[in-house]
C-alpha cells in the first residue's frame, strides 16, 4: 500500500539534487558570489530540510499500519527510474542496473535527521569558518557530502548505496584535508596524514562491503533457483539484482525453505557486509581513523563524524539486517559491545575536547551496533539511538566548536576552565546534550539508551548466548563511563577557576548563527526522545517508532513471504520477558547514570579527589588507556609498515628478479656476446683473413694478365668465346 504519489517522488528526487546543484554552481561561481555563495547553499539546505520534514510528517508520521509504505520503484515505475548500465530497455534486468527510490520508515527518519542536522551545521559553519581562505570550497564540499548522504538514504539498491558510500568517503577525505592545504594552519601535516588515513581505513571496510554485495548478488539467486528446482519454493525463477526488496524476499524465502537455517555462504556474505559497517562506523579494528579525523574543521566533525556518515554504517546494518544469520549477529553484538566499552575507557583519559567527543561517538556507535545485533526489538532501539545520537552529538561537537572558536582554537581542556560565565548559551546547550547522552530521563538519550539496554536484557534472557552476556555486562559499564567522561568534560571546561588566564580573558560567546544552530540542536536533543515515542516509554510495542522501523517483516509478509524478524533470529519475545526486561533496564540505566555523575562530580567538580593520584595508582593500566591501548602504534607498526615493507620487497623483486631476469638475459647475452666476439675475431676472422690473403695471392697472379694491351684483351675475348663454344659442342 503505497501512499506516495508520483510528484512525491519528484520532491524526494529533489532532496539530493539540490545540494548537488548547489555544489556545481558553487564550484564554478562560488568565489565571486556575494558572501562566497554560502547563503545559496544555506538556502538550498533549508529547502531540503523543509521537504524532508514535510515528507516525514505527511507520510511516515501519520502512517500507522501493518505494511510499511514503500514503493516498488522500478516495478510500478511510478517512481523515477535510472537505468545505469545500458540505456536500452531490452537488456535483461539482471544485466542492466535499474535504480529507483526506496522511501520507507527508516529512510524517512534518517532523511529528516540528516536534513535538519545538515542545515544547522551549514548555519553554524557559516559563522565558524568565516575567516577561512578556502571558505567557498569548504561549503562546496559540505554540500556535495550532503548530496552523497541523502542519496545513500534514498537508494533502493545496495550498489547505489555503495556508490554514495564511497563518495561520502571521498568527501570526508577532502573535508578532513581542508586544513591540509591551508599554509597558515598549524596542524597542516597532521591534516594531510589524517585525511589519507581516514580514506584508506574506510576503503578497507568498503572493499569488504563490495565483496559481500557481490556475493549476495551472485549467490542469492542461484540458491533461490536451485531451491526452486528442488521444489522447496514455489514461484518463478529469479534474476540476480542488487535491489534491497529482492534481497529481502529471496533471503527470507531461502531461510524459510531451509526452515530457519542460514546457508553458510550467507553468513560469510553477512560478515563481509558487516565489515563495511565496521569500516564506516569506526568499530573496533577500523576505528583508528575517527580520532585523527578531528584534524578537520569542527563543523565537519559535527556533521560527518558524529551525525551522518558514521550513522551510514548503522543504516546499512539496518537495511541488510534480514540477511544476517544468527552467527553473524553474535559477532555484531560482540564487536559493538567491545567497541562501546573500549572507546569509553579511552574517552576518560583524553584531554583534547574534540578527542573526548570522538571516542564518545565511537562508543555510542558501538551501542547502536550491539543493539541491532541483538535483533528483534534491538533493531528498533539501535536505529532510534542513531536518530537521537545524531542530534545531541552534533550539538556537543558544535558547542565544542564554539568553545574552541571562543578560545581562539585552543582545544586542550587542561587550559580551559570556568567558561560558563563567558559563554552562557554554549554552556547551556552543552549541558543539555551531556544530560541527553548520559541518559537523563526526559532527555532524548534516556529513551534510546534505555531501550538498548532493555533489548540486550531481553535477548540474553530469551537465549543465553556468549555475545549477549558480554553485551549485558559491557553496555551498562560503558554507559557509566560515558556519563563519567562527559561530565568530566563539562567540569573541566565550564566549572572551576580558569587555568589559563590569557585564554579566559579573550573567551567570548560565539556570534548569532552559531548559537542559533546550538539552540536548535539542543532543543531537538531534549525533546527528540519523548516526541518520537508518542506512547508510554515503558511499554514495549505500540510506540509509533517501532512499527515505523519494523518494516522489513511486514514488507516480506505483504509479498507473500513470511520473514518474521523475531522468528528469524529465534528470539521469541514474549510479552512477559519484554516487560520484565524493560523494568530491569530502567533500573540499570538510572543507577549507572547516578554512579557516573557522582564520580565525575567527586573528582572534577568538587576536586575532592586528585585525579593524578588515581592515575598514579592505576599506573600502567592508565598509561595503556591514555595511549589508546597502543592500537594506533600497533596498526601503524603491523599493517602499514607491513604493507610498506611488502611494497619495498616487491619493488626489489620487480627490479632485481623480474627485471633482473631480463637484465640477466641481457648480461648473459652480453657474456655470450663477448665470447662470440673472441671466437669471431680469432677463428672466423682468422678464416676470413686466410681467405683474404689467398685471394690476394691469386689476384696477383691474375694481375699478370692485366697487360693493358688492348689487342691481348681482344684475343683473350675471342679465345674465351671459342673455349665456351668448344665446351658447349663437346658436352
Amino acid at each position: 500500500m503505497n501512499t506516495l504519489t508520483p510528484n512525491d517522488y519528484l520532491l524526494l528526487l529533489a532532496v539530493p539534487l539540490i545540494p548537488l546543484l548547489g555544489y556545481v554552481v558553487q564550484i564554478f561561481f562560488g568565489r565571486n558570489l556575494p558572501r562566497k555563495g554560502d547563503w545559496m547553499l544555506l538556502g538550498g539546505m533549508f529547502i531540503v530540510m523543509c521537504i524532508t520534514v514535510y515528507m516525514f510528517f505527511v507520510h511516515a508520521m501519520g502512517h500507522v499500519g501493518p505494511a510499511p509504505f514503500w514503493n516498488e520503484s522500478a516495478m510500478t515505475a511510478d517512481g523515477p527510474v535510472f537505468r545505469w548500465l545500458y540505456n536500452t530497455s531490452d537488456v535483461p534486468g539482471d544485466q542492466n542496473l535499474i535504480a529507483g527510490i526506496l522511501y520507507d520508515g527508516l529512510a524517512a527518519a534518517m532523511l529528516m535527521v540528516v536534513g535538519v542536522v545538515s542545515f544547522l551545521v551549514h548555519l553554524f559553519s557559516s559563522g565558524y569558518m568565516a575567516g577561512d581562505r578556502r571558505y567557498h570550497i569548504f561549503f562546496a564540499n559540505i554540500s556535495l557530502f550532503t548530496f552523497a548522504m541523502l542519496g545513500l538514504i534514498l537508494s533502493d539498491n545496495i550498489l547505489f548505496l555503495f556508490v554514495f558510500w564511497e563518495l561520502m568517503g571521498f568527501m570526508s577525505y577532502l573535508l578532513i584535508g581542508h586544513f591540509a592545504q591551508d599554509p597558515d594552519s598549524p596542524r597542516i601535516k597532521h591534516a594531510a596524514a589524517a585525511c589519507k588515513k581516514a580514506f584508506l581505513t574506510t576503503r578497507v571496510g568498503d572493499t569488504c562491503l563490495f565483496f559481500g554485495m557481490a556475493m549476495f548478488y551472485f549467490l542469492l539467486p542461484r540458491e533461490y533457483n536451485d531451491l526452486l528446482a528442488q521444489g522447496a519454493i514455489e514461484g518463478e525463477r529469479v534474476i540476480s539484482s542488487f535491489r534491497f526488496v529482492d534481497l529481502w524476499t529471496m533471503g527470507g524465502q531461502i531461510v524459510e525453505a531451509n526452515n530457519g537455517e542460514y546457508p553458510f555462504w550467507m553468513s560469510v556474505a553477512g560478515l563481509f557486509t558487516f565489515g563495511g559497517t565496521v569500516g564506516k562506523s569506526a568499530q573496533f579494528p577500523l576505528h583508528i581513523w575517527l580520532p585523527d579525523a578531528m584534524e578537520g574543521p569542527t563543523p565537519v566533525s559535527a556533521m560527518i563524524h558524529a551525525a551522518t556518515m558514521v550513522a551510514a554504517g548503522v543504516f546499512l546494518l539496518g537495511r541488510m539486517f534480514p540477511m544476517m544469520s544468527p552467527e553473524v549477529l553474535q559477532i555484531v553484538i560482540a564487536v559493538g559491545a567491545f567497541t562501546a566499552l573500549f572507546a569509553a575507557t579511552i574517552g576518560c583519559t583524553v584531554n583534547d575536547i574534540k578527542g573526548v567527543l570522538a571516542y564518545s561517538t565511537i562508543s555510542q556507535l558501538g551501542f547502536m551496533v550491539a543493539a541491532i545485533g541483538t535483533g528483534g526489538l534491538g533493531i528498533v532501539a539501535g536505529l532510534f539511538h542513531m536518530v537521537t545520537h545524531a542530534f545531541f552529538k552534533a550539538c556537543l561537537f558544535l558547542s565544542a566548536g564554539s568553545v574552541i572558536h571562543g578560545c581562539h582554537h585552543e582545544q586542550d581542556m587542561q587550559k580551559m576552565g570556568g567558561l560558563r560565565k563567558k559563554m552562557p548559551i554554549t554552556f547551556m546547550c552543552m549541558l543539555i546534550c551531556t544530560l541527553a547522552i548520559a541518559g537523563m530521563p526526559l532527555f532524548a538519550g534516556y529513551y534510546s539508551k534505555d531501550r538498548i539496554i532493555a533489548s540486550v536484557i531481553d535477548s540474553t534472557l530469551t537465549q543465553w548466548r556468549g555475545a549477549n552476556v558480554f553485551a549485558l555486562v559491557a553496555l551498562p559499564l560503558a554507559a557509566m563511563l560515558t556519563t563519567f567522561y562527559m561530565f568530566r568534560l563539562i567540569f573541566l571546561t565550564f566549572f572551576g577557576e580558569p587555568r589559563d588566564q590569557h585564554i579566559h580573558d579573550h573567551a567570548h560567546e560565539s556570534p548569532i548563527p552559531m548559537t542559533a544552530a546550538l539552540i536548535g540542536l539542543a532543543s531537538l536533543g531534549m525533546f527528540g526522545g519523548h516526541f518520537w515515542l508518542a506512547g508510554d516509554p515503558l511499554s514495549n510495542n505500540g510506540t509509533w517508532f517501532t512499527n515505523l522501523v519494523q518494516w522489513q517483516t511486514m514488507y516480506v509478509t505483504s509479498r507473500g513471504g513470511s520473514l518474521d524478524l523475531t522468528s528469524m533470529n529465534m528470539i521469541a519475545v514474549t510479552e512477559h520477558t519484554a516487560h520484565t526486561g524493560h523494568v530491569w533496564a530502567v533500573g540499570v540505566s538510572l543507577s549507572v547514570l547516578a554512579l557516573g555523575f557522582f564520580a565525575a562530580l567527586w573528582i572534577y567538580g568538587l576536586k575532592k579527589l586528585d585525579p593524578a593520584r588515581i592515575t598514579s595508582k592505576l599506573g600502567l593500566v592508565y598509561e595503556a588507556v591514555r595511549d589508546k591501548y597502543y592500537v594506533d602504534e600497533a596498526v601503524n607498526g603491523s599493517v602499514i609498515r607491513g604493507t610498506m615493507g611488502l611494497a619495498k620487497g616487491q619493488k626489489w623483486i620487480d627490479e632485481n628478479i623480474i627485471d633482473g631476469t631480463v637484465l640477466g638475459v641481457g648480461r648473459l647475452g652480453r657474456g655470450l656476446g663477448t665470447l662470440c666476439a673472441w671466437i669471431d675475431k680469432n677463428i672466423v676472422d682468422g678464416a676470413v683473413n686466410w681467405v683474404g690473403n689467398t685471394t690476394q695471392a691469386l689476384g696477383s697472379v691474375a694481375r699478370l694478365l692485366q697487360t693493358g694491351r688492348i689487342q691481348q684483351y681482344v684475343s683473350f675475348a675471342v679465345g674465351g668465346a671459342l673455349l665456351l663454344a668448344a665446351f658447349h659442342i663437346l658436352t
Partner: protein
Amino acid sequence: MSILHQQRAFYGLLTLAILTSVGYGLVSHGAEGMAFGFFSSFTIAGSLMCIWERSVVRSAFSLMATFMGVAGLFLLLGSDFLAMAQILIYVGGILALILFGVMLTPPDLGERSLPRIGGTLVLVLGGASLVWKHVMDATESLAVLPVEELTPMTSQDQSVGLAFLHPEQYVVAFELAAFLLTVALVAAVYIARRRTADFEPEEAA
C-alpha cells in the same frame, strides 16, 4: 724471299682466288652466282690485303674494296637503298676519317710481322671452323626459306623511307640516331680540341 717477291706472290694468289670464285659462281648459279662470286671474293680480298699491306695508307684503301664488295652483296640481296648508304657512309665518310687518322699519325713501316699475322689467322680460322658447324646448326632454327620460294625482289626504297617516319615503326630510332650523331660530332670535336698547353713551350720535364 725479298719483299717484292712476297708482294707479287700475294697479289697473284689474290687475283687467282677472285677469278676462281667468279668462275665457280658462274658455273653453279649462272649470272647471279657470278655476281655473288665477284662481290664476295672482292670483299675478302680487300680485307686480306688490308691485313697484309705494310703501309697503312694501302691498307686503308684496300678497305674501300671490302666496303664496295659488301655494297654489291647488299644489291644482290635486294636492298638497294642500303647498298647506296653503305657506299656513301662507309667509303665516303668512315674511310675518309681513317685516312685523316693515317695522315695525322707517323708511318711505322716495320710494324707488320707476317708470322704474327699468319699465326693469329691460323688460330682464329681453326677456332672458327670448329665453331662453324655449330653456327650452321643454329641457323636451321631460323625460319629461312630455301632460295626457290623467295618472293621476287622488289625495290623497297619507298617503304624504307616511309618506315623511317612511320610512327609505329622507326621514327623514334631515327630521331635518336640523329640526336646521337650530333652528340658524337660535338664530342669528337671536344675530345680532339687543341689544348692550350700545346701552345706554351714545354719546359724540360
